[in-house]
């Protein structure tokens, strides 16, 4: 009797220990994955925060001789203002090096400022101009002035000028709005995310407009209207397989059919959206079927019992109840499409696009492609742009996922 009791309590202790171990293993797993997520976010944020600011140089621009926009050679005006700031620089090659303090865009920058504010014409004013990426990197501490001269991007003379500017308070750091409002550029100080963002959004609109209705119709027909047969099993297996096909295959399909047979414009968000729609369609169908299946049969039976037709039952009762699940599936599928680059290579969206796309048939690129292109650029300053672009992409994904949760919460009905 006592023997039995001691063995039983011994067993109990072992079982409790096993329980305890299992719980802690689970917690450890969560801590690990959260830890990795935090490390990733931390490293990206610490790299990417640099992209939010940029260096500017103050110059005294003399436009007193000009009365209209056509009178001014803006490039020359900026150049002579810079030379006037450093009158001691006379050597031709030194002057060349001096010009590299400023972004190559500074002439256009002045032109834009004057266009916005014509009052600048006919007077002498001090204005701020975007500095070149090397100066910007130096200001952010990415260039070490203590290295020997031949190993750093900024030579001693340039560093001397930068220090002079600093001592005159003619060098400042401002919020980099251009990063969010302009398109891609080969000059890191000018490069922005906007054209890629618009391209991504346009592609997603096309993707949603095509895949959501099609996906729902397919799911409805399979789940509500078709009889279970060998034929429907065959279709079901195919759809499940399609969901697992590598995305580059859809790109190849897009190139072969959408570009070559239909002749739609290359590099356009229309074609990109169509390819992404092909890719998300299986995901949406599967999610929508699961949502339809979770609607209790009693609802259908009640509606049919009241004399509603199949179509009425489906559209008045079943579909509204299944909608939150379908939307969630669609948004998750779209979030995956947002991060895709592979299918876009084939249809020409992996491209350098400066202008913001004006419509669905205009050339465009997408956020992940922009990240890829920047990561591959030699200029050091693109490193922070890459990280900042990743943050923008992550932000968009978070917004989409929150939208999925909110929609589900809002429309969900419990019975």
């Amino acid at each position, binding site marked *: 009797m006592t023997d039995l009791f001691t063995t039983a309590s011994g067993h109990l202790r072992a079982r409790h220990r096993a329980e305890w171990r299992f719980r802690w293993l689970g917690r450890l797993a969560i801590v690990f994955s959260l830890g990795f997520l935090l490390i990733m976010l931390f490293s990206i944020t610490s790299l990417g925060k640099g992209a939010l600011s940029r260096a500017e140089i103050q110059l005294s621009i003399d436009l007193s001789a000009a009365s209209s926009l056509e009178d001014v050679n803006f490039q020359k005006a900026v150049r002579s203002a810079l030379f006037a700031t450093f009158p001691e620089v006379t050597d031709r090659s030194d002057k060349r090096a001096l010009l590299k303090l400023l972004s190559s865009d500074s002439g256009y920058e002045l032109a834009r400022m004057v266009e916005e504010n014509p009052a600048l014409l006919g007077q002498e004013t001090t204005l701020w101009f975007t500095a070149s990426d090397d100066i910007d990197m130096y200001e952010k501490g990415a260039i070490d002035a203590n290295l020997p001269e031949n*190993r750093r991007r900024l030579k001693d003379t340039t560093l001397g000028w930068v220090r002079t500017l600093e001592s005159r308070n003619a060098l400042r750091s401002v919020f980099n709005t251009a990063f969010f409002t302009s398109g891609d550029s*080969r000059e890191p100080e000018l490069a922005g995310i906007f054209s890629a963002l618009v391209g991504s959004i346009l592609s997603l609109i096309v993707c949603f407009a095509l895949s959501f209705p099609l996906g729902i119709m397919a799911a409805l027909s399979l789940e509500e209207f078709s009889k279970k047969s060998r034929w429907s099993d065959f279709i079901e297996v195919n759809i499940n397989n399609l969901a697992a096909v590598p995305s580059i295959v859809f790109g190849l399909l897009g190139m072969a059919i959408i570009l070559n047979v239909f*002749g739609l*414009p290359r590099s356009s968000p229309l074609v990109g959206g169509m390819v992404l729609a092909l890719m998300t369609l299986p995901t949406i169908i599967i999610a929508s079927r699961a949502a339809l299946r979770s609607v209790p049969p009693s609802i259908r039976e009640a509606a049919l019992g009241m004399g509603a037709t199949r179509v009425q039952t489906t559209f008045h009762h079943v579909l509204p109840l299944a909608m939150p699940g379908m939307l969630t599936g669609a948004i998750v599928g779209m979030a995956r499409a947002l991060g895709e680059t592979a299918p876009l290579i084939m249809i020409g969206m992996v491209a*350098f696009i400066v202008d913001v796309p004006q419509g*669905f048939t205009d050339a465009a690129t997408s956020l992940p492609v922009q990240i890829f292109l920047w990561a591959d650029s030699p200029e050091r300053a693109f490193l922070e742009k890459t990280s900042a672009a990743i943050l923008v992409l992550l932000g968009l994904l978070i917004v989409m996922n929150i939208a999925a949760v909110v929609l589900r919460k809002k429309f969900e009905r419990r019975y």
Partner: protein
Amino acid sequence: MTKTLTAIAVLALTTGAAAAQERISIVGSSTVFPFSTTVAEHFGKATEFATPVVESTGSGGGLRLFCAGVGADTPDITNASRRIKASEVAGCAENGVTDITEVKIGYDGIVLANSVEAAQFDLSLRDIFLALAANVPDGNGGTMPNPYTTWAEVNPALPATKIEVMGPPPTSGTRDAFAELAMEGGCKTFDWISELKGEDKSAYKELCHTLREDGAYVEAGENDNLIVQKLAANPDALGIFGYSFLEQNADLVQGSIVNGVAPEFEAIAAGDYPVSRSLYVYVKNAHVGEVPGIAEFVAEFTNEETWGEFGYLAEKGLIPMGEAEMAQFAEDAANLTPLLLD
């Protein structure tokens, strides 16, 4: 809901089509990509024309698209980090692309670099070949699988560190150029291999171009920034990449001396540095006049301010040609002189 969505889509499509502009479409080499995009951006800003769209498809992929035919849905210009092949010219002609203008835009040096923490390498092409080839001469007129594990075994003057070289995968044009210039250059310093070229060209190529696959040569992907990062972290390794990445990362990596010449701007421009290749742009003459701005774009590219010694492309790492060569190609480009392969 579906109805409104379709309506929006249709509306957006029609307005989008109206807004779409005719713009120059450029495809091709990822090595030329940084240069042609820079020109495209300048061109877009300085002229009334829309900024050209530049795709990075690789030299071979670009030429395939370029040669697919004449018409609005084919590219107008392709970039290549090697010269167009006779077979590609023939393929082009089959599809109706007969007149192509070849514009050589400059040179790109391929560097072998290591971390600044380690000593600079002083290599000969023969050292590079012996260290990286799959099969090397065994000294008796035959070949053997590469037995060398350290640089000192290849050449006693080199350090006794493990041979570990990170470079691009076979799909890369940089890899092709490296095999052709560095590997083959070192390979043919052996007299009997040099003679083999006349007898059995494919065996010669096989021997000279094949890189070892036993872990000494590490395929590090197409991303040169990644190679630079890995070199900075591992002072014993060497990496193969384009000159522009060396120029941008001089605080992290240093280029090895090859055949007594360091990979510096002047040395590559003068043709003294042995591992440098020409970069090309090919223009489809049939599209000039059809797509607005092509002639102007080529003019921008071949402008002294662009591809000259002090032009903005030199700043991006392109090594300019000599004066005479530059003048010749600028003239050919301006006249759209069709390419003739000899």
